[in-house]
């Protein structure tokens, strides 16, 4: 079990992931969103590496490396190219106002703390609080997906939701490696598939605004 300084450092990394989630909700420019996402992935990588050290569980270093290489570098760079090629580096429209979204985000964090903290009295403090933070990141990712209309920022919302999942998985002691590997793998697969979608959607619609696509629903003919 972690004590003292180790505990505080683990907390620091997890909390910075959460704060960057709020950053994502607030940021309205696409490039800004990509940069914050890269930072968040970096924070997740640090959290994973720290847990690997603190729990003496070396497999987590691999998770950290995957988070660092794929999520903090490859994915943001690739999205940067997509955004440039599609000429959509203008401001993001949001459905709900940014302030309302942020307030709602705070409420979600409070909700997850209320859900997780009282129920897991048997487990160590760190795991418990880490889980509450991870759940908050997950819910904020979901909120971002709902509140944005632009497909790129929706995808980033989904990816930050997955950051929350990794945060949860590394915090639980001795989580078998299968699951972490699969999370990392699914990010890769999801990215490829998303990428394919983008190009096809771009070919057909010349816009990534999902709201616009709704008009083509089969039922409204």
């Amino acid at each position, binding site marked *: 079990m972690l004590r003292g300084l180790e505990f505080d450092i683990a907390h620091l990394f997890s909390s910075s992931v959460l704060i960057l989630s709020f950053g994502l909700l607030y940021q309205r420019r696409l490039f800004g969103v990509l940069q914050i996402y890269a930072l968040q992935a970096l924070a997740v990588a640090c959290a994973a590496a720290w847990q690997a050290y603190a729990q003496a569980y070396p497999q987590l270093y691999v998770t950290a490396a995957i988070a660092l290489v794929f999520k903090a570098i490859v994915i943001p760079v690739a999205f940067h190219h997509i955004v440039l090629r599609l000429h959509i580096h203008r401001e993001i429209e949001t459905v709900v106002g940014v302030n309302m979204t942020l307030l709602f985000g705070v409420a979600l964090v409070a909700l997850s703390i209320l859900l997780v903290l009282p*129920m897991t009295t*048997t487990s160590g403090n760190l795991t418990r609080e880490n889980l509450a933070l991870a759940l908050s990141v*997950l819910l904020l990712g979901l909120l971002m997906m709902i509140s944005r209309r632009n497909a790129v920022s929706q995808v980033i919302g989904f990816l930050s939701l997955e950051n929350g999942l990794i945060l949860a*998985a590394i915090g639980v*002691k001795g989580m*078998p490696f299968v*699951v972490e590997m699969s999370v990392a793998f699914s990010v890769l697969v999801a990215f490829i598939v998303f990428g394919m979608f983008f190009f096809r959607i771009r070919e057909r619609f010349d816009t990534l605004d999902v709201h616009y*696509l709704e008009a083509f*629903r089969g*039922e409204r003919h």
Partner: protein
Amino acid sequence: MSPLAVILGLPLLGAAVLALLPWHRASARLNMLASLATLAAALSLFVVPVEANLFFFIDDFNIYLVVLTSFVSFTTAWFSASYIDHEVAIGRFTPAALRFYHAMYQLLMFAMLVALTANNIGLMWVAIETATLTTVLMVSLYRTRESLEAAWKYFILGSVGIALALFGTILIYFAAQPTVGEGIDALAWETLLAAAPRLDPNVLNLAFVFLLVGYGTKVGLAPLHAWLPDAHAEGPTPISAVLSGLLLNVALYAVLRFKMLLAANGAAIAPGRLLIAMGSSSLLLAGFMLYRRRDIKRFFAYSSIEHMGISAFAFGVGGPLANFAGLLHMALHSLTKSAIFFAVGHVAQAAGTQKIAEISGLTRSHPWLGWGLVLGVVAIAGLPPLGLFMSEFLLLTAVMGRDPWLAVPLVVGLGVAFGALAMRTHGIAFGEPGRETRPLTASLVPMYLHFGLVFLAGVWLPGPLVGWFQAVAALLGG
């Protein structure tokens, strides 16, 4: 070699070979052959016992679903062969798309069979994710605006569902780890079920909520069903048959496994109310939505939401009788709905359209096909003597015994859906044939084979099947 290795190995091998094979007729035959061989291996499970290991196992619950899945996979491959011939002839499929289609078909079967036989909740999650990704790619196969939008919507909602399910899976491990210890053991079904009474009920509750919402999205339970009608309507029809007949069942199977865990724990919340709420809202919503459908595939997709709602409702009511009814309903709906989609695929090809208003008089222009569709609708509406009547009747009996008030949403939902089915089918099947009908050279054997089985289940259930259902119904709890 264990039959399990064959069951899982064949589809994987099939996918690899089909990805390389350029001739579409040969691919369609090979697709059928691979599915038939998988079915034979699945049937051998009845006689050859399989040793459980850390990753795979066979028990009373998954054995019938494995056989059902490989059976429907074979008949759908059969249907798909004639369906594709027509699509190639009218130029909707390119050779490259076909190669991709066949490889993805076998990969989907592989993923579903892994999900069903997995003894490990992490592995099951990976398998369901793979199944989702393959179906997303297949829904987008026609590359029309509608199909891309449908695939996109399915992908976004499916991914969110899957992410939430993974969080639930992590929470289950979190609950198990203090009791079972660290490592792979704490993810194995058998270990978890044995240790269930000693797990922290609060963590289990939270985990189940995430798992229900996550996998429930894949089941198509209201209010998480938005992807389902679009995905069914815009992809190739064999995929609609497999989605409705198999993938929805696999997702419901996952939810039920976790329900068993809660039932074995005792101190956790009774998940029944959640399932009843979601089940009855799916049933009612889909029942009313059926009236406004204009697209024939979308119409039957809503009917799938309705029937998954009925199954979820049955497991929510709980107890030996209702659980039995739910298990039977899952199996029979799978057979009936895939057969209906076979019929619908041929209907859409014969009439040259999916719009209900433009299809009429099928029993006159294509008697075998038209009457087949009528038979399917009679079955899906739950009329005797076909099998779904029996499962719905059993459910109603169980509900009346437990809490008669709960019968109200059930009866209303069934009645509303019946009205819509009767109204729409009347126009499609009877009256003057449409202005433009094409002759059809398709094989209708798979469809009538399914209806034959559904009829058989309505009048007689084999002993071993009843035994499995009873054993599983007891494990599923109240």
